[in-house]
């Protein structure tokens, strides 16, 4: 069946070479980020695509991110666009399994994405096939107030002990070391992921999110012990469960907190909160267990073709277009993130440069706890992390509950 569709597509492609203008029609794209930067980047790319393909009538729908997450389930099965943005890893799994995304392995092969997009290939792959094309990713790490660090004579910590020492110094000076807002849970997963990646490494992260090791495993307990070392002395800001990640920027901006475990998309928000480029800086999450190869969180965003798309031929053209090095360079410069295409050039912004240095030398790239683990497990896990941050003494109960859920989810 699959072979036949491919053959048909090839035939279609061949005829279209002769009569592009006649065959080309509307290309509907659903995009999920109306924030100024990302919207600009997307629209610039679409404009360029239109310029190169004047015969394709591109229709763009830009939706709010949360609304998109709900709407996608409807529009994929009812009224499919030709292209939609979505996330790789386990987040695309339900749609792939339900046959709602088009297999684009042929495109990966033709365009040699296996080489140029190698960094993200594993997370775009399910059942041995590729289902979409990624256009951007970003690093995670610790953003900190450089001015405060300089005032107190703190260096960028390289090891766990240095991080604890730096936190102690900050605390002595009435500055909470870490800000965080866990109202929407995922921020806590970022901290957990890093502690786990540094304590146990990439393989344990993958085994845990794949349901192969238990939450009560001694290695995972070791991760929580490290976390406890930050929670017990009050190194995280109070009331974090009432705050979103944006709310948590306020104490960071007014100097009540000095560090933030975050993704690079947050830099814009720091600047909007009144911090200047000189006041903020970035360092990689410090080493915990010496010798564990450094893996990083680097979630990617991608575009997919719904299997119900009407104009799959032009959709493939667009996917090939957004993977091009020049397009990815331009786009990611606008949105302040990293291009995935290894031939693309990286913006000379200092955070992007540091981020590039961070992810390009990493031994493994994790997507994020809630993208690597199945949705139900992720939700329960992140609630567990939040509960642990507020009531660390309940660790045993939390881990046992997570084990119970894990058993059911992965059965």
């Amino acid at each position, binding site marked *: 069946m699959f072979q036949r569709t491919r053959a048909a597509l090839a035939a279609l492609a061949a005829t279209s070479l002769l009569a592009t203008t006649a065959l080309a029609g509307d290309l509907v794209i659903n995009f999920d980020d109306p924030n100024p930067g990302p919207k600009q980047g997307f629209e610039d790319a679409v404009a360029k695509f239109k310029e190169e393909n004047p015969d394709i009538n591109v229709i763009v729908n830009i939706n709010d991110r949360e609304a998109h997450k709900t709407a996608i*389930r409807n529009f994929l099965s009812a009224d499919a666009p030709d292209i939609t943005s979505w996330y790789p890893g386990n987040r695309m799994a339900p*749609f792939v399994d339900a046959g709602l995304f088009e297999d684009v392995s042929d495109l990966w092969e033709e365009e040699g994405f296996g080489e140029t997009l190698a960094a993200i290939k594993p997370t775009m792959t399910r059942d041995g096939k590729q289902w979409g094309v990624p256009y951007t990713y970003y690093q995670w790490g610790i953003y900190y107030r450089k001015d405060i660090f300089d005032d107190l004579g703190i260096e960028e910590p390289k090891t766990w002990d240095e991080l604890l020492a730096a936190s102690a110094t900050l605390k002595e000076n009435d500055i909470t070391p870490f800000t965080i807002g866990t109202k929407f849970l995922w921020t806590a997963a970022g901290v957990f992921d890093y502690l786990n990646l540094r304590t146990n490494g990439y393989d344990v992260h993958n085994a845990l999110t794949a349901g192969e090791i238990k939450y009560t495993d001694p290695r995972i307990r070791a991760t929580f012990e490290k976390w406890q070392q930050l929670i017990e002395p009050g190194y995280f800001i109070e009331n974090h*469960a*009432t705050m979103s990640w944006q709310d948590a920027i306020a104490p960071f901006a007014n100097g009540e907190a000095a560090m933030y475990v975050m993704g690079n998309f947050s830099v814009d928000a720091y600047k909007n909160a009144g911090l200047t480029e000189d006041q903020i800086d970035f360092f990689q999450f410090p080493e915990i267990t010496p010798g564990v190869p450094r893996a990083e969180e680097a979630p990617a965003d991608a575009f997919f073709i719904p299997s119900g798309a009407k104009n799959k031929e032009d959709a493939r053209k667009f996917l090939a277009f957004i993977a091009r090095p020049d397009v990815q360079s331009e786009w990611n410069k606008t949105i302040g993130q990293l291009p995935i295409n290894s031939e693309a050039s990286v913006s000379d912004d200092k955070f992007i440069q540091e981020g590039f240095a961070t992810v390009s030398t990493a031994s493994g790239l994790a997507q994020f706890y809630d993208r690597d683990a199945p*949705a139900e497990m*992720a939700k329960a896990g992140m609630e*567990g992390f939040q509960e642990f941050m507020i*009531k660390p003494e309940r660790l045993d109960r939390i881990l046992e509950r997570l084990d119970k859920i894990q058993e059911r989810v992965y059965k």
Partner: protein
Amino acid sequence: MAVADASLSTRPEKSWYQKNKLAVTPWIFLAPAILFFVVYVIAPIFQSIWISFFEWDGLGDAEWVGMRNYVELMDDDRFYTSLKNNVLWLVLFMLAVPAGLAVALFLNQTVMGMRVYKSLFFFPFVISQVVVGLIFTWFYNPNFGIVGEIWSFFGASPPAILADEDLVTYGIIFAGLWPQIAYCMILYLTGLNNVAADQIEAGRLDGAKGWSMLWYVVLPQLKPATFIAIVVTVIGALRSFDMIAIMTQGGPYGSSNVLAYYMYETALSEYGYRMGYGSAIATVLFLIMLVYISFFLWRMYQDERGGR
């Protein structure tokens, strides 16, 4: 009618409809309402009970699992938390009824501009629940909210009401009470308009005043209003969805969940899409509501039969 029938009797035969006019016509008028009620209310109830026997993500094939969703429910901490919170809601939300009565009694006097005060008191019911939730979220914010200000004024460190598992549900119920009191108040205000002046007069002559007047003369006459107020408050408590969605999303770590929101979370939210499990929760919620609703329907029936 009799006249019309007589004039028609000269015809040899009446059509079936004409013979059964009186019996059939009400049903014709009821038909559209019944049709939509069946399609949009009755059928979905059975549909969701049916779905609760499946494991289904809403996209792929549904897998028959029998009672497994219910067995899982029995062993689910989050479910018990939600159930407990539902009970809390039901009990505490009832405060809206006496509070509404108190406000109504207070406002039931003739003062200049009384209508303005009445509409101001009614205002919280008119604005959207989402807005109420948002406003109270800000009130409760320990950093810049009014609660934080008051606590700091007395030199105490303010509680993070919405982040504390022991306080969060009370915080949300309190926010929910605000519009609900307004609702009960308006029900009682209309009720008070119909309180017979002669009975008050008679009561006064018999020496009733203050509490005894309220309890023995006014309240019995307000019985219909009380009945409606309790019914809408029970239903309001069981549907307490919007407040939770806006204020905490069930957090911290699920401790402010109620069944309605938990159902939404498991069946329809970002990390959910377990339609079967969500339907099982919905079924339990439905059964709880059914107990209340049948009780009140039974009461209503009794009252009507007794002629009150």
